[in-house]
């Protein structure tokens, strides 16, 4: 990983990858949603409302994957002092928060026709709402530390500690009686209780949103690196002009 510790080398790879991930992601999302919303069958029990799954589940996965990324970046920042880790963590936070919000909003809209309620304080919904609040707190903390000019170590510690919410979200439907149903897809055992005619569009949509997420993170990392470069250059110029001013 330290090969990419040099921002110039990272940028050389990140630049073409941004476009590739972005366009491939948008194309895949378009195809997957077209299949999911128009061609895939309706559910035997829920009817047409099941189609929210093609946005809701990818958003939920990415909301949780985002914080996993923040935790890994925080670890690399704290232990190995990787120069890009802090930039990566902060770049993930905003899209992660957006996808978590999309998950909550679509879940709420889905809950009304199926369960009969927009919101209930059950274990899964509450822990997902906590994840959104963690994201907002992380963004605020990162902003405050940047303003102070610190190394962002408190933000990284928060990113690591906040990761304990991830197993809570995952096991909320196992530990407690919840209104939300149990998990449909078990990656470890490779089992799914979603019929394959609905599962494939779902996985395609999730892959598309993941690529888009990656493109947004790369874009935000490049913007932050460019900003840091600009700041350093301005500082050098200011130092040079004040130095020449004293010489006269």
């Amino acid at each position: 990983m330290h090969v990419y510790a040099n921002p110039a080398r990272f940028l050389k790879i990140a630049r073409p990858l941004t476009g590739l991930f972005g366009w491939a992601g948008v194309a895949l999302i378009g195809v997957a949603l077209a299949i999911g919303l128009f061609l895939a069958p309706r559910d035997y029990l829920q009817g047409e409302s099941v189609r929210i799954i093609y946005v809701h589940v990818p958003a939920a996965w990415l909301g949780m994957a985002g914080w996993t990324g923040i935790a890994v970046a925080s670890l690399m920042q704290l232990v190995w002092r990787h120069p890009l880790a802090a930039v990566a963590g902060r770049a993930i936070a905003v899209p992660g928060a957006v996808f978590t919000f999309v998950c909550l909003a679509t879940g709420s809209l889905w809950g009304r026709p199926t369960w009969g309620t927009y919101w209930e304080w059950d274990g899964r919904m509450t822990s997902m709402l906590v994840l959104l609040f963690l994201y907002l707190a992380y963004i605020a903390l990162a902003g405050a530390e940047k303003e102070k000019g610190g190394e962002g170590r408190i933000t990284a510690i928060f990113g690591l500690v906040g990761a304990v919410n991830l197993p809570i979200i995952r096991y909320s439907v196992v530990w407690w009686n919840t209104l939300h149903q149990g998990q449909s897809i078990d990656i470890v055992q490779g089992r799914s209780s979603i019929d394959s005619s609905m599962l494939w569009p779902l996985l395609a949509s999730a892959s598309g949103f993941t690529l888009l997420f990656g493109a947004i993170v790369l874009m935000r990392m490049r913007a932050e690196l460019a900003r840091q470069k600009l700041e350093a250059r301005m500082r050098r110029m200011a130092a040079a002009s004040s130095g020449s001013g004293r010489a006269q």
Partner: protein
Amino acid sequence: MKPKNQRLVLVVLALVAVIGAVLLAMSAMRDQAAFFYAPGDVARKGLPLDRAVRIGGMVRQGSIQRHPDGVTIDFVVGDETQATIPVRFAGITPDLFRENSGVVAEGRFQPDGRFVASEILAKHDENYMPPRLGPQGQHKTETLE
């Protein structure tokens, strides 16, 4: 030890401590954080008569009975134990409320053991499939005649 490894050990120890603490807290909250009581829980702990609670489980096959007034229904909620709870509810049920399907009801127990619900939520399971593959008799939608 190199400072890098020192930091790694420190972070891992701190993480193990935090995760351990959270797991202990979560297992202690097992009952309090539950969204509803299953019939088995009620049979084990007795009926909470003094306050509004939520109960949940499966609506027993053939147990839904409609009263002549058109809005009141009686049904029986069961779970994997032998325990069952008779429920009465007056109002509009969600579309997914049906026999052999999950339900969560909010309300109060009466002294005779019947649960009078003020709100009914439908709980569905983790299976998704097209109508032709659905369990027999469940994919039929009823229409008003």
